C-alpha cells in the first residue's frame, strides 16, 4: 500500500464493501456453498456482528434483517415459523410492508450467523440492515421489477398485434398455415414474458409449495401455467385455441400491481432508512504513530471503540455518540429530533451519532458505538413498531391463509361444474376464479396503513414504538399531562430576584454563581447561566437537601432553601419554591425559580379540546405552581402533590370513562405511563433506549400531539375502509368469476387493482404531509451540498 488513502480504502472495503461483493458473487450462475459460507463467516466475525446486533443487559440480542424475495404475508408467516423454531430465539417480528424481520434471541445459545443460515435454508437471502445494504437492495429490487414490467409490457403489446388477426380469422378466411405461423410467433414472444417477467410468481409459488404452505403466488402461478402450457400444446398440435395474449396480460398487470405496491412500501420505510443512512462509513480517529506523535487515521466506523477520540470536521456527520473534548460548534439534530435550528455544543456537551456538525471542527470522545447509539435506538423503535402486528392484522392474515386453501378447492369444483354444462368455457372460468380472488388486499389492508401512519407521524416528530398504539391513539378521549418537563420545559431559570440588602442584583447573581460553580443540578445551572463566577470560594461544601455553603472574602454565604439559608430567622411558607442567599446568617436576596411553559403548550391544549379531547394535569409539584400552569394552559382538572400511586389511581379512574393517553417525561413516570392506554414519552434523550412508552415525542413539540391524534383517527378510518373493501371485493368477485361473468383479463385487472387500491388508500396518510417532506428533501440537499461524502 502506497499511502494512508489506499489503506483507508482497503479497510473500508474490508469493513463495509464485502457485503456488496458477496451479493454480486452470489448470482445464480456462481452461487456455490463456498461463497455463501464466506458471507456467513463475515457476519459471524464478532466485530462485524456487533455493528448490527443490539445486546441488552440480560444477554438477549436483537437484530433487524432485510430479506430478499419477500413478497407477501405467507412469506412472513413462513419466516416467523422457521426462525421461531430455532433454539434460543425468543421473538420474531416480521414487517411485511418493509420486508424486515426483527429477531430477539439468547446470546449464549445462538449467533447472528445461525439466523442467516436458517433463513437461507428456507430459501431467503437475508442480511442485517445497514444503510448501504438497504439502498443497494432497494435499487436492485426496483430495477429488476422495472425490467420485468418493461419486457412484459412490450411483449404484451406485440402479442396482441399478432393475436388480433387470429380473433378475426373467421371473417377474413385466413389460411391455416398463416394461423399457425402467427401462433408460433406469439409463443416465441410469450415465452420470455412468462419465464422472465413472471419469474417472481413462479419462484414464489415453488418455494411456498416446497415448504408445504400456500401463498398468494400459488393460484396465480397455477393460472399462468395452465394457460401457457395449454396454448403451447395447442400450438404444437396445430389445433385448438391459444391464450398467449391472456398470459402476457396477466403477467404485465400483476407485475404492475406489485410494482406500485413495492414503490409505496419503500416510501413508507424511507423514514427509518433516512435515519439509517445518516450513519457515515468512516471516521477520523486520533492515534499515535510509532514515534508517539498524534496522527489522524481514517478508519471504518465499525472499528471505532468507546473511548476513542475522533475529529469531526465542519459539515461532517457524527459516526457515534460522544462528548466534545475540544472545540465549540453547532450541531444540526433535525433528522433525529425534528428541531430545525442547529444546537450549540461546547466542551463536555454530548453529541449524537447521525447529527451534522455545522460550524467548526470538534474533537469528540466516543461514548457509544454501533447498536448502542441514540440513533440506533430510534431506528430500532421505529422498526419494532413496523414489525409489530396489531390484532386486526393477525386475524386478517389467518383468514387469508384459510381462504387460499379453500380457493384452490373451489376452482377445481368450478372447473368440474363448468365441464359438465359447457366444457368450452370451463378453462376460462377456472382461470378467472384463480386470478380474481387472491386475498392480497386482505393481508395488505392493515400493515400498509400502519406503515404509512407511523411514517406520517414520524415526520411530525412522534415515534410510534408499538403497532397497536395507532389504533389506541385514535380512540383516546382524555389526555393527562405531567407538568415538569412536559407542559414546561424542565429547564429551570431564575425569575424575579428580590434583594434584601445593600448589594446590587448583579452582585447577588455573581455570588450565587461563584457558590454553584462546578455543580451539576438544574438549579445550579440556572445560577451559572445568570451570573459570573468571579470570586474564589473557600470551604465550599454541599449540604444535602439544603444547599451550598462557602466563604468568600471572609463572609460565609449560604445558598439554598429558605429553611437552610435563612436559618430559621424568617418563617417561610413550606410551599415556597424559591432560593435564598444569606451572608453571615443575614438574608441578602431571594430568587424566584421559574420553569417556563413550552411555547406551544397552550395551543396544544386548545387544539385537543377542539378535537373533543379533555385534558388534565397530574403533578408531583406544589399546589400553587400547578394551579397557575393549569390556569395558563386552560386545563380545568388538576391534581398537585401526586405520588406515583396517586397518579396511577387517578388514571385508572379516568380509564373507566374512556381511553386515556398519558404524556410524561418517560423517566420518572415509567409505571404511570405503562398504566395508561397510550403512553407518550417526551424527548429523545438517554432514556429512549429502554423507553417503555408506546410513542416518543422526539421533537418535544406538544403542538404536534393534536395533529398526530388526527392522523391516528384517519388511519383507523382508512384501516376499516380497507378491510371492508377487501372483504367486499373477495366476496363479490368469486361468485361472479365462478359464473363465468368475469373474463380472465378483467380478473387480472381486478386482482391488481384491489391490492393497489388498498395501498393507495393507505398512502393518503403520507400525502398530506408532503409539504414537510419537501422541507426534509431541501435540508438533505443542503447536507449533501455541505458534505459531499
Amino acid at each position, binding site marked *: 500500500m502506497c499511502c494512508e488513502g489506499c489503506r483507508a480504502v482497503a479497510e473500508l472495503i474490508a469493513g463495509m464493501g464485502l457485503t456488496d461483493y458477496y451479493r454480486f458473487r452470489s448470482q445464480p450462475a456462481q452461487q456455490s456453498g463456498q461463497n455463501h459460507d464466506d458471507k456467513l463467516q463475515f457476519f459471524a466475525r464478532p466485530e462485524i456482528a456487533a455493528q448490527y446486533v443490539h445486546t441488552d443487559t440480560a444477554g438477549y440480542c436483537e437484530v433487524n434483517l432485510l430479506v430478499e424475495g419477500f413478497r407477501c404475508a405467507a412469506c412472513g408467516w413462513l419466516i416467523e415459523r422457521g426462525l421461531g423454531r430455532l433454539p434460543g430465539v425468543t421473538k420474531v417480528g416480521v414487517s411485511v410492508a418493509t420486508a424486515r424481520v426483527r429477531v430477539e434471541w439468547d446470546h449464549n445459545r445462538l449467533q447472528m450467523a445461525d439466523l442467516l443460515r436458517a433463513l437461507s435454508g428456507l430459501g431467503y437471502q437475508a442480511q442485517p440492515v445497514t444503510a448501504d445494504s438497504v439502498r443497494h437492495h432497494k435499487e436492485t429490487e426496483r430495477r429488476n421489477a422495472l425490467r420485468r414490467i418493461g419486457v412484459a409490457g*412490450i411483449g404484451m403489446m406485440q402479442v396482441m398485434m399478432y393475436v388480433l388477426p387470429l380473433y378475426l380469422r373467421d371473417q377474413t378466411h385466413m389460411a391455416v398455415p398463416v394461423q399457425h405461423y402467427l401462433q408460433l410467433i406469439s409463443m*416465441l414472444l410469450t415465452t420470455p414474458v412468462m419465464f422472465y417477467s413472471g419469474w417472481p410468481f413462479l419462484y414464489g409459488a415453488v418455494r411456498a409449495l416446497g415448504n408445504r404452505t400456500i401463498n398468494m403466488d400459488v393460484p396465480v402461478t397455477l393460472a399462468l401455467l395452465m394457460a401457457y402450457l395449454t396454448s403451447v400444446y395447442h400450438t404444437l398440435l396445430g389445433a385448438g385455441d391459444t391464450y398467449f395474449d391472456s398470459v402476457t396480460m396477466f403477467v404485465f398487470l400483476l407485475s404492475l400491481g406489485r410494482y406500485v405496491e413495492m414503490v409505496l412500501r419503500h416510501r413508507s420505510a424511507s423514514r427509518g432508512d433516512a435515519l439509517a443512512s445518516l450513519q457515515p462509513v468512516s471516521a477520523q480517529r486520533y492515534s499515535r504513530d510509532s514515534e508517539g506523535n498524534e496522527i489522524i487515521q481514517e478508519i471504518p466506523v465499525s472499528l471505532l471503540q468507546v473511548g476513542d477520540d475522533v475529529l469531526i470536521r465542519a459539515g461532517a456527520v457524527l459516526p457515534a455518540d460522544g462528548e466534545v473534548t475540544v472545540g465549540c460548534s453547532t450541531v444540526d439534530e433535525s433528522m433525529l429530533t425534528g428541531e430545525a435550528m442547529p444546537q450549540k455544543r461546547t466542551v463536555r456537551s454530548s453529541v449524537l451519532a447521525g447529527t451534522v456538525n455545522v460550524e467548526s471542527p470538534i474533537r469528540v470522545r466516543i461514548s457509544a458505538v454501533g447498536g448502542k447509539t441514540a440513533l440506533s435506538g430510534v431506528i430500532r423503535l421505529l422498526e419494532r413498531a413496523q414489525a409489530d402486528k396489531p390484532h386486526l392484522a393477525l386475524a386478517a392474515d389467518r383468514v387469508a391463509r384459510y381462504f387460499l386453501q379453500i380457493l384452490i378447492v373451489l376452482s377445481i369444483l368450478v372447473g368440474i361444474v363448468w365441464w359438465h354444462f359447457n366444457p368450452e368455457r370451463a378453462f376460462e372460468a377456472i382461470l378467472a376464479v384463480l386470478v380474481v380472488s387472491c386475498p392480497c388486499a386482505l393481508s395488505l389492508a392493515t400493515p400498509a396503513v400502519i406503515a404509512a401512519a407511523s411514517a406520517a407521524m414520524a415526520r411530525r416528530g412522534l415515534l410510534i414504538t408499538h403497532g397497536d398504539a395507532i389504533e389506541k391513539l385514535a380512540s383516546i378521549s382524555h389526555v393527562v399531562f405531567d407538568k415538569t418537563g412536559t407542559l414546561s420545559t424542565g429547564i429551570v431559570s431564575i425569575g424575579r430576584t428580590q434583594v434584601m440588602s445593600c448589594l446590587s442584583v448583579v452582585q447577588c447573581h455573581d455570588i450565587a454563581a461563584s457558590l454553584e460553580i462546578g455543580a451539576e443540578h438544574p438549579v445550579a445551572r440556572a445560577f451559572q447561566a445568570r451570573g459570573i463566577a468571579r470570586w474564589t470560594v473557600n470551604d465550599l461544601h454541599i449540604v444535602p437537601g439544603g444547599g451550598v455553603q462557602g466563604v468568600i472574602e471572609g463572609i460565609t454565604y449560604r445558598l439554598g432553601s429558605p429553611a437552610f439559608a435563612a436559618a430559621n430567622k424568617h418563617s417561610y411558607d413550606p410551599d415556597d419554591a424559591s432560593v435564598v442567599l444569606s451572608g453571615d446568617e443575614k438574608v441578602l436576596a431571594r430568587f424566584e425559580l421559574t420553569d417556563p411553559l413550552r411555547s406551544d403548550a397552550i395551543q396544544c391544549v386548545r387544539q385537543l379540546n377542539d378535537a373533543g379531547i379533555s385534558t388534565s394535569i397530574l403533578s408531583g409539584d406544589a399546589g400553587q405552581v400547578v394551579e397557575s400552569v393549569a390556569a395558563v394552559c386552560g386545563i380545568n382538572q388538576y391534581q398537585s402533590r401526586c405520588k406515583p400511586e396517586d397518579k396511577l389511581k387517578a388514571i385508572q379512574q379516568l380509564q373507566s370513562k374512556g381511553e386515556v393517553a398519558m404524556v410524561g417525561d418517560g423517566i420518572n413516570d415509567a409505571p404511570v405511563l405503562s398504566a395508561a392506554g397510550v403512553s407518550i414519552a417526551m424527548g429523545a434523550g438517554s432514556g429512549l433506549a429502554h423507553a417503555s412508552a408506546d410513542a416518543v415525542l422526539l421533537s418535544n413539540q406538544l403542538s404536534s400531539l393534536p395533529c398526530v391524534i388526527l392522523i391516528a383517527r384517519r388511519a383507523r378510518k382508512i384501516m376499516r375502509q380497507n378491510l371492508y373493501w377487501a372483504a367486499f371485493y373477495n366476496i363479490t368477485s368469486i361468485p361472479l368469476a365462478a359464473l363465468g361473468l368475469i373474463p380472465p383479463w378483467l380478473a387480472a385487472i381486478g386482482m391488481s387493482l384491489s391490492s393497489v387500491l388498498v395501498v393507495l388508500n393507505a398512502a393518503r396518510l403520507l400525502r398530506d404531509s408532503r409539504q414537510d417532506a419537501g422541507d426534509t*428533501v431541501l435540508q438533505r440537499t443542503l447536507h449533501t451540498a455541505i458534505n459531499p461524502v
Partner: protein
Amino acid sequence: MSMLLILIPLSLVLIGIAVWAFIWAVGSGQFDDLETPAWDILSQPESDDSNKYDAAGT
C-alpha cells in the same frame, strides 16, 4: 402473404431493439431517481455560479 414472412421477423427484431433499449435505460439508472432531476433545475444555476466565482476569484 410472403410479406408476412419478412415483416413479422423484422418486427421481432424491432421489439428486440426496444427491449434492449429499455433494459439499458433501467440498467444505466435512468429510472432510479425521478424526483431529483426536477429539483436540479432549481439548484443548478447557483452551483454553476459559485464554481465560476471559485475559478475566477478565490
